[in-house]
């Protein structure tokens, strides 16, 4: 049985980690590896141009997988990120023409190297809708699976019993499910217990190893 993954999120802007403690993404990612991360999710909303250089630095210094989520405008940008060393790219929610881009990426790089972020919001009549696509979230994710998507990065709002049920249904698909960590250990553990393969965590106050210690009490298996 695979270990559940704890994946810290780093926001990158202009080649630097964004936030109160800026610095090169490679240095922060290596620190997180030492702190027990099972992978790194890098989010870069900026232009593609300067991205390849710092991606190569991350790839050359890290000994765990890392994933890049970015607003890829075309196949060439996505290709550049993977050739620079990203182990996987995530197409963000609401990206234009996600289906042809996903299909082309899967053809060239394979299922294991492409995922899609899905922002699922519970509607007033208790249906999960993928926003801003405006489609039923489960049907949308099933369609992505058919196109060869290898992983869903799922944000379900609001978090609670309904979102745990959505994760459970999503986990029935054959692809990997990485859940954006809801607030609170109980909800985070519920996401994993309901079938998420990993959690994307963005809490700088807690190391990945501390996350594993906190969630390990719920009977979940993590890598040592």
């Amino acid at each position, binding site marked *: 049985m695979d270990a559940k993954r704890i994946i810290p999120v780093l926001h990158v802007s202009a080649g630097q980690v964004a936030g109160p403690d800026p610095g090169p993404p490679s240095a922060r990612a290596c620190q997180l590896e030492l702190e027990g991360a099972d992978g790194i999710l890098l989010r870069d909303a900026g232009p593609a141009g300067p991205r390849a250089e710092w991606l190569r630095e991350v790839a050359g210094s890290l000994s765990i997988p890392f994933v890049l989520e970015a607003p890829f405008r075309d196949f060439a940008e996505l290709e550049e990120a993977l050739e620079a060393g990203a182990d996987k790219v995530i197409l963000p929610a609401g990206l234009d023409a996600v289906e042809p881009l996903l299909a082309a990426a899967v053809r060239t790089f394979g*299922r*294991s190297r492409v995922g899609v972020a899905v922002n699922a919001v519970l509607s007033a009549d208790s249906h999960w809708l993928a926003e801003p696509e405006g489609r039923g979230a489960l049907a949308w994710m099933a369609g992505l699976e058919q196109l060869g998507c290898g992983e869903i990065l799922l944000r379900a709002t609001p978090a609670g019993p309904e979102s745990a049920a959505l994760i459970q249904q999503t986990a029935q698909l054959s692809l990997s499910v990485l859940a954006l960590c809801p607030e609170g250990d109980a909800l985070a553990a519920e996401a994993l217990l309901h079938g998420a393969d990993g959690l994307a965590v963005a809490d700088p106050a807690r190391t990945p190893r501390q996350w594993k210690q906190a969630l390990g009490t719920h009977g979940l298996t993590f890598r040592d």
Partner: protein
Amino acid sequence: MITLIHLGHESLSTLEGAARRLGFESCRAARPDQAAPAGPIILAGAGPLDPACAQLKGSGWWSELPQLAAGGRPVLGINLGLHILAEGSEESPRGTGLGLIPGIVRRLGPGVKDPHWGWSPVRQRRVHPLFPEIRGGWLFFAHSHALEPGSETLSIAVHGRPFSVMECRGRAVGIQAHLEKSGWLGLSLLEKTLAALGEQPGPASSAGSN
């Protein structure tokens, strides 16, 4: 010096970085004439099999690798590289592999996450006098196909059913796990595997230090 076969779309940055941190020298070789004169040849990759095989055939590596292996040159296949070293794969039923490692690569599943992307515990099946044991450690995998375990398989993991993690036939070695992405344990195994293939790190070696 380690020769890293460059397969078009593949990034070698992580593998190069791992070799550097372990103190090994490496060079990229898109064609056989760019290879180092001695030392292990690593064929690493991920993604679809057919384009990778076409790339190897077009560059001359496809015919050169078996000759080099027959002459005693160590060859290490990682992930897709292992699949290419095997006899064949369900991913490309009409094609054949290089046959340096016996066995057929099969699709994972059914009824499992595809691709298998994550950390799995590895079990040792046979002890080899030269190669490191992987006893209960967690390694990172990213694949949809895997070699069926055989009687000489050194170690296995399970994703729905058991699959081969490490094979060795003479100087040809195949590893399904991404050692270069498997943390300190992966780096340590990579170092020991390269040492078993006759490659020695330089004085700047820092194996396991991260």
